């Protein structure tokens, strides 16, 4: 991994809470967030790209966390659980503009939308990023972020106004 134990400790202390909080925000409960946090760090540290070359480790870890968590909520088993009893309240500040019903609805749509659209939606609707920030995290252009959000919004409106409609996800 290229980091000794002391360096890993510094990285963990600096970014561990961030990754966990972000995973919890997307997945909705501590147990899944803990598991995702472990997986994010293992993936990141096992990556061929070292940390040293990263201008922003936070942005990089955001990207990995978003990708991993979106994949997880797309899992059929987890998808069922998300809007049942396991959805816990999120921390008050992170999504203060969203009601509990909105968060539940957002997670439901995230589980079924196209993965890249879902990732853009997490960045903008859940995290409150600007399109520019989302573009940096997702490594796409601002215009692409706009297009992804437009597709996500179309799908969300259709999905939530017609809950019986078939999934429209495209892997």
């Amino acid at each position: 991994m290229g980091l000794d134990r002391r360096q890993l400790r510094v990285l963990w202390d600096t970014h561990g809470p961030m990754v966990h909080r972000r995973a919890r925000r997307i997945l909705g409960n501590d147990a899944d967030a803990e598991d995702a946090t472990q997986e994010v760090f293992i993936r990141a540290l096992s990556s061929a790209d070292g940390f040293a070359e990263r201008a922003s480790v936070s942005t990089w870890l955001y990207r990995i966390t978003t990708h991993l968590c979106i994949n997880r909520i797309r899992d059929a088993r987890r998808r069922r659980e998300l809007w049942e009893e396991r959805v816990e309240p999120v921390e008050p500040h992170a999504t203060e503009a969203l009601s509990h019903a909105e968060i539940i609805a957002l997670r439901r749509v995230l589980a079924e939308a196209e993965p890249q659209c879902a990732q853009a939606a997490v960045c903008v609707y859940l995290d409150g990023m600007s399109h520019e920030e989302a573009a940096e995290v997702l490594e796409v252009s601002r215009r692409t972020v706009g297009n992804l959000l437009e597709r996500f919004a179309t799908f969300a409106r259709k999905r939530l106004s017609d809950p019986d409609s078939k999934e429209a996800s495209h892997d």
Partner: protein
Amino acid sequence: MTDSLGFLSRKTEGPSELTLDRYVAGELGDSARAEVDRWLAADPTRAARIAERRAFPSPLSGARGEQLFARIATAVEPRPSRFMSWLRALTSPGGVGGLVVVIALALVVTRPWESGEVLRVKGGFGFLVHRKTATGSEVFVSGDIARPGDVLRFEVDLPEPRHVLVLSHEQQGTLSVAWPLDGSESSRRVEAGPRALDGAVELDEAVGDEWLHALSCAGPMPASAFTVAGPGRLTVPDGCRSIAVHLRKVAP
């Protein structure tokens, strides 16, 4: 359901989550940092949003967070080859059993197995943990991650008939019988050669380190004859040999 679409028109005031996280990590340039400083200064209550970013939330603070860190650190350490993992598993219990296995290593031979090659130690005995998968089973390598609900079966490879017992050793120091499954709390005679032990066990909800000790004894031996000597280690009576497989159990 239309009300739930409110997230599509969400307008955020102030810095995004990413910006605040980069602020805490010291990754912002001077201009962006100054902008966050001004935003914080405008409302003293906003400082709480920074403070909360510097620590794990309560479910992962303290020992829980340390356990998670330890699991990550272990997982990203340079991994020994499958060969070395197996040897480490064979020698980890220490004591007489471990010593006998180490001496026998000069005679290690390999034989094909269902998922690659697994070692057999001549003069000692082998212990395999198989985990059920969607399509069949896989051999569980010591040190790998396990999850509550995993279904495991055991296999031993004995050079001669022995009395076998498998003990589950949790990180809190508790020991319980994982095989035989008949409630006898004692070893059972197993014939020589590779033998799948009857029955399967399902891992419980507890997370953390757990070791499965396979114990091979010359005669009948009760589970109470074995005591914990430390993390992953047992005190083994004379006439018995042991092999441990380490499970790092995480939440499902």
